[in-house]
């Protein structure tokens, strides 16, 4: 009998995941700005403080370095800590603690000390916030051994991946997208987990594989629908986690379609898009019927003007145009 489904927003799916895991694991402490009685800048902790109290939902001043270091130290001593940077941009203030302390501790201690800390933040350009509130630099974390990097695209993935991330024994960089918080989708009525490292095939296709994460999954899906009308059948694959990366499922899709385009809200240089292209070359070079394509944000700091900002980030129109051009060759 199929499980009952219900509609929920991305942000509320995250709140549900937190509520279930905080009920299950009494050692979880949540640290960050405005996550207590206010319920989070994005409503991402709404109602939790009332249920779990200010002991476990600890508001802080504006000091990401300190809050993150404290969260990591709490995790090292036996708590499970969540630190909410609110904007991914602000995690830069805390980078030394994430990269130099959290990521190394398990390895350097020969597996004796674990740092089960979840670093939560929201990325991406939305409503012309400009360069200090719009970045997508997940690649910096992904290139650091010892960190897992999770980028959910839908309410279903948000809930299942957040719950699984809160059961990991290592630091997890959990990056949501600001533009997705109010999007809606269906999730099962009951509890469920999604393992890290399993890509999701959003749409099956024959002619080209579109790999995308987070908000770009939705751009890819819209582009695929438009391409379908032109007779181009695109398969849309969302790895859902950058680390670990589901190399097998991505490669299997490329073997099937013979073509690859990666759609990435980050710039192309040394990034996620290049990693997927490298994967294609390493795993299934002979299956490629054309050079892999990268459709990425332009390598410019995020501009403020709406007209300029829309030029930078991959749009449905740009994806359709570039894929069409690839297919014509």
């Amino acid at each position, binding site marked *: 009998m199929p499980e009952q489904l219900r509609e929920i927003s991305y942000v509320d799916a995250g709140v549900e995941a937190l509520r279930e895991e905080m009920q299950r694991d009494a050692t979880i402490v949540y640290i960050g700005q405005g996550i207590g009685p206010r319920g989070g800048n994005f409503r991402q902790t709404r109602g939790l403080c009332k249920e779990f109290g200010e002991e476990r939902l*600890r508001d802080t001043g504006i000091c990401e370095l300190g809050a993150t*270091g*404290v969260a*990591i130290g709490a995790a090292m001593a036996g708590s499970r800590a969540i630190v909410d940077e609110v904007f991914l941009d602000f995690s830069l203030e805390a980078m030394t603690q994430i990269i*130099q302390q959290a990521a190394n501790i398990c390895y350097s*201690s*020969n597996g004796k000390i674990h740092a089960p800390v979840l670093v939560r933040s929201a990325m991406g350009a939305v409503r012309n916030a400009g360069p200090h509130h719009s970045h997508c630099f997940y690649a910096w974390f992904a290139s650091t051994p010892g960190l897992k990097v999770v980028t959910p695209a839908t309410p279903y993935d948000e809930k299942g991946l957040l719950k699984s991330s809160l059961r990991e024994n290592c630091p997890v960089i959990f990056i949501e997208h600001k533009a997705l918080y109010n999007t809606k989708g269906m999730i099962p009525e009951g509890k469920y987990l999604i393992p890290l490292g399993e890509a999701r095939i959003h749409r099956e296709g024959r002619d080209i594989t579109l790999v995308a994460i987070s908000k770009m999954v939705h751009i890819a899906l819209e582009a695929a629908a438009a391409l379908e009308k032109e007779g181009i059948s695109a398969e849309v694959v969302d790895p859902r986690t950058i680390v670990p990366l589901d190399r097998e499922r991505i490669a299997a899709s490329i073997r099937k379609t013979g073509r690859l385009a990666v759609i990435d809200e980050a710039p192309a240089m040394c990034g996620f898009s290049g990693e997927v292209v490298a994967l294609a070359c390493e795993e299934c070079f002979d299956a490629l019927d054309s050079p892999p394509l990268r459709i990425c944000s332009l390598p410019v700091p995020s501009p403020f003007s709406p007209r300029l900002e829309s030029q930078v980030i991959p749009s449905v129109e740009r994806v359709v145009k570039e894929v069409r051009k690839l297919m014509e060759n």
Partner: protein
Amino acid sequence: MEKGAAGQMDMNLLLTLYREMLQLREFELKVQELYRRGLLPGFVHLYVGEEAVAVGVCSNLHPTDLIYSTHRGHGHALAKGVPGREVLAELWGKSTSSSGGRGGSMHMYAPEYGFMGTNGIVGAGILLATGSALSAQLRKTGQVVVAFFGDGAVNSGSFHEGLNFGAVWNLPVVYVCENNLYATEMAFRRATKNTSVQSRAAAYKIPGVEVNGSDVLAIHAAARAGIEQARSGGGPTLIEAKTYRFQGHHEGDPGTDYRTREEVEEWKSRCPIKTLREKLLNDRGAPLESVEQIEREVQQWLEAAVQFARESPEPEPSTVADHIYS
């Protein structure tokens, strides 16, 4: 056990403090020798001259209490109870230490002894210690956490943010600044206008205490008060121990490009180990035989540690990718 004031301390405790300080001193001089002979890889920062601080503080701690150390951390590890042979094996990159040769001098961990790590990043341990104290408070473990750091850390953001968190959340943590007057080559008086570290405690509304870092009894007493306050729910204390490293910043730095020889010699004349030895023999009437017995035993302990570390196997290359995530 103590009878009250530092001057009335139990003889056994005094002898224990003497033994531990001597262990730290002899250990570091041996490390220096082994390093100069090219046997130890990496970089080492020696604790010679500062022994009274680690020993004075850690002699008040329970085995389950936690400490966070610095790049100059071999002494902290020994004082917290990590066996000397394990510390030396780690410096040698051998597989038999707690960290299995993965960490080395500046990334050495032995949580089974409450030793939560040396650290290559100045100031980082202040925040980690504060967070561990939060965990102890939330889980009601009764643990106290000590953060050791140098004067080089106190002008960093980590110091400010850590002490602010420790204070506002009333955490069971003690902040111990080993003010040895130089951050690498930078004199503290050149780095900051307010050279009294303890006075900064007022900014966080926590007690600040300055102690003579060459006087292990004074440090023991100051630390005891801070640790008792933390354990009983009274929140953090900032202790500033005025101390000095007799060696350069790291092994290989002569330490005299930015310090005068006179200054170094003056501090050496106040050596905490020599001072306690004289106090034991002259003021407290300890039998010379007892003191010399300790000195012989420390040498035996050190020789055994060297033999253990030297003969220990190196890590298996096949384990290089173990423990990245768990």
